[in-house]
């Protein structure tokens, strides 16, 4: 477990910025308790500072996970957000879309969001911006990238893709083995 290098930090923040925008500041400089990002076995964790201090005695080999796992650094050196980050993103998300109950499960199986399943959408969402996807009961289900802007969405035919799938909570069941 170590702090992120400057490069890594830049990658992580850039990615987070796509979803939370300027709320990133609230994420890093929290009012309640100092939080930090740590890298452990190519995974990026977000946690209270007290937590990682207390976890210090645990050897690197034996430490499996701590705090909130928000993403991983791939072999290619890129940063991917994983579903663990969903709660953080949902709290601070700039752009959101809501799914109709009928297409909830379809998204939870890893499919893109189609126009037919789109219940609501925040205004002024640009194409290719990050969105957090909720169901109509405001339960965060995952996140993705908009394929079209809000205005374009209005005129689309029902089978057209509105948002590309990136992560969804169905992964907790589908890929439990690759969580850590």
């Amino acid at each position, binding site marked *: 477990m170590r702090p992120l290098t400057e490069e890594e930090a830049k990658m992580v923040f850039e990615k987070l910025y796509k979803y939370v925008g300027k709320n990133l500041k609230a994420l890093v400089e929290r009012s309640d308790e100092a939080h930090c990002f740590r890298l452990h076995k190519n995974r990026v964790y977000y946690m209270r500072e007290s*937590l990682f201090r207390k976890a210090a005695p645990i050897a690197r080999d034996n430490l499996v*996970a701590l705090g909130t796992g928000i993403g991983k650094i791939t072999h290619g050196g890129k940063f991917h957000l994983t579903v663990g980050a969903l709660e953080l993103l949902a709290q601070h998300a700039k752009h959101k879309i809501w799914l109709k109950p009928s297409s909830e499960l379809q998204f939870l199986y890893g499919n893109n969001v189609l126009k037919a399943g789109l219940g609501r959408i925040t205004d002024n969402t640009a194409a290719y911006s990050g969105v957090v996807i909720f169901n109509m009961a405001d339960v965060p289900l995952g996140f993705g990238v908009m394929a079209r802007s809000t205005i374009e969405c209005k005129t689309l035919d029902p089978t057209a893709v509105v948002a590309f799938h990136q992560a969804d909570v169905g992964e907790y069941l589908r890929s439990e083995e690759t969580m850590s």
Partner: protein
Amino acid sequence: MAKGEQARAKKRKTARGDGKLASEASRHVLRKAKAGGLGKVAGFTDSNASWLKPKSKRHKAAEAAQVARPDSDDSMGTSGDDFGSEEVSSAEEGEQCKNLLESEEEGDGSSDIAGSRSDGAESIDSEADLEEGSSGSEAELEIEKKSRLVEKQRARDKMHAEAEIKDMALQWQREAEGQDDELDDTSMIIPQAVPDLTEVKTRIAEIVNVLENFKTLRNPAMPRAAYVDSLKHNVKTYYGYNGFMVDCILGLFGPAEAVEFIESSEVARPVTLRTNTLKTRRRELAAALINRGVNLDPIGKWSKVGLVVYEAQIPLGATPEYMAGHYMLQGASSFLPCMALSPQAHETVVDMAAAPGGKTTYLAALMRNSGIIFANEMKNERTKSLVANCQRMGVTNAVISCYDGRQLTKVLGPKHADRVLLDAPCSGTGVIHKDPSVKSSKTTNDIWNCVNVQKQLLLAAIDLVDAASKTGGYIVYSTCSIMPEENELVITYALRKRFVKVVSSGLEFGREGFARYRDFRFHPSLKLARRYYPHAHNLDGFFVCKLKKLSNGAKPPTGEANDGDETAKADAALQTGEDANPVSVPLPGKPRAESNGVRRDGDDGEGADGRRAEQKGEKKKKKRERGIVKKAREELMEEMRKLKATDDAR
């Protein structure tokens, strides 16, 4: 004269013909009557006995009457002719004919009418008979008929069942011999006795009944042990337990309750789920699930987060709510240790055997994600489900590690935690329905191996806790085993080794822990521990015990130190003071509790105990002696006697 004779003969002929006709007619009517009411034949009752007699008898009676009054026509005229004419021997025929003739001569033309009249009278009679039969005796007969039919059916069924059993036995035998492939037909004729399971079950019920009311129902020739042995045997065959498990279960419960326990261990407990209070509330979750077609209810007064599911049209482990971490599917019994531990906010808590995370996430929810939870799991594969569940449930205060629990004290350092939850790995005798192989695979060795690990883990858990903690200093030990060896005995061991005491776990229900079991004598405070059984609480078999750490450090291995500790006073009292080594307690019947496995009987320790016990007063000895020890002592005495005898002989 000749003419007269001829005429007479002629007359006789015609009369005879007439008579024949008449008798034939009457016979016909009779046949008709017979055919018309077959039931009538069966319907004869005693009320008809005055006139109704078996044919041969009646014939004889008629003959006798004839002998007495050879010319009595009227007796023949009405009823005699039709019956009599049926079975007349050739020798009698003449006389009979004569009689007939005479009778016919009296009223030639009216014979037909008379015959028919007589028949009519008889038919009326028989009709009356029929009515009488249908009102009284007929109903009885119906029942009899039915019962006969039923009996027949039963006999047939039994025959079929037997045939089937034999068939199956043959088949099994064939399968057993399948490898050889050389089937000898004659060898297969003798089928192995296949137990009839329903019969075995009724037998179990019967024996239990007898054992419950032993004084009144017993067969005086049979000792209780014989009944118990038979019960064991039947339970083994019906439920597939091995002898060791049956012994243990019958040692824990009375016969009726033991069978109840076994019976309820066959079926799964109801599906229960726990609301994740970090993300939602129980009422909201229940509403969401009811919308999805799940029929559920709160689990009971004792839990504010539990829901019990009666019926679900959708898979509960794949709803959007489940994936979003609003609830966890977990047995109701695994709520209990978390509730007993009741961690406070901002504490440091260690879960020593955490996977798959049901209890860990509950602890996090109780702490509202504050403080820190060290969730440890020894097996690497199992940490994956632990991580996934913690992430799904939104747990952010967990540090997940992969250590052997016994090393944790070394890794984290002693006195590191405020509270420790040890849900120890166990033999799983409380959750037989989840893994039925437990019934047949567990042996004494398995149990004692578990006990060994559990003792080490519990000591490690106690060492992790800081007795000086302002809010905590508690350890909760739980297993899903019902064996006192894995529960009370382990706690007793910890009480001897560390400065801890058993405290109330704050759970409203559950049975008290054992203070004594077979020849074990546990610490009396173990009554504060709680036991749960499938038949009594509809939970998995479970044991929960909460310990409070009084002082850091280990107890010195001498008995004197025990006396210094107030919690060990009762223990010390039990140990009768004089033992220098708390490990081998001189109490007869109290097993030696050592980390390298404890044996109850049969080894040298018992003998030594017995010898020491002898040295003490007679009263004490009598009070405390029990089965095995007594036997051991007797054996020892006998050996001594033999040795003496041989010495004397030399």
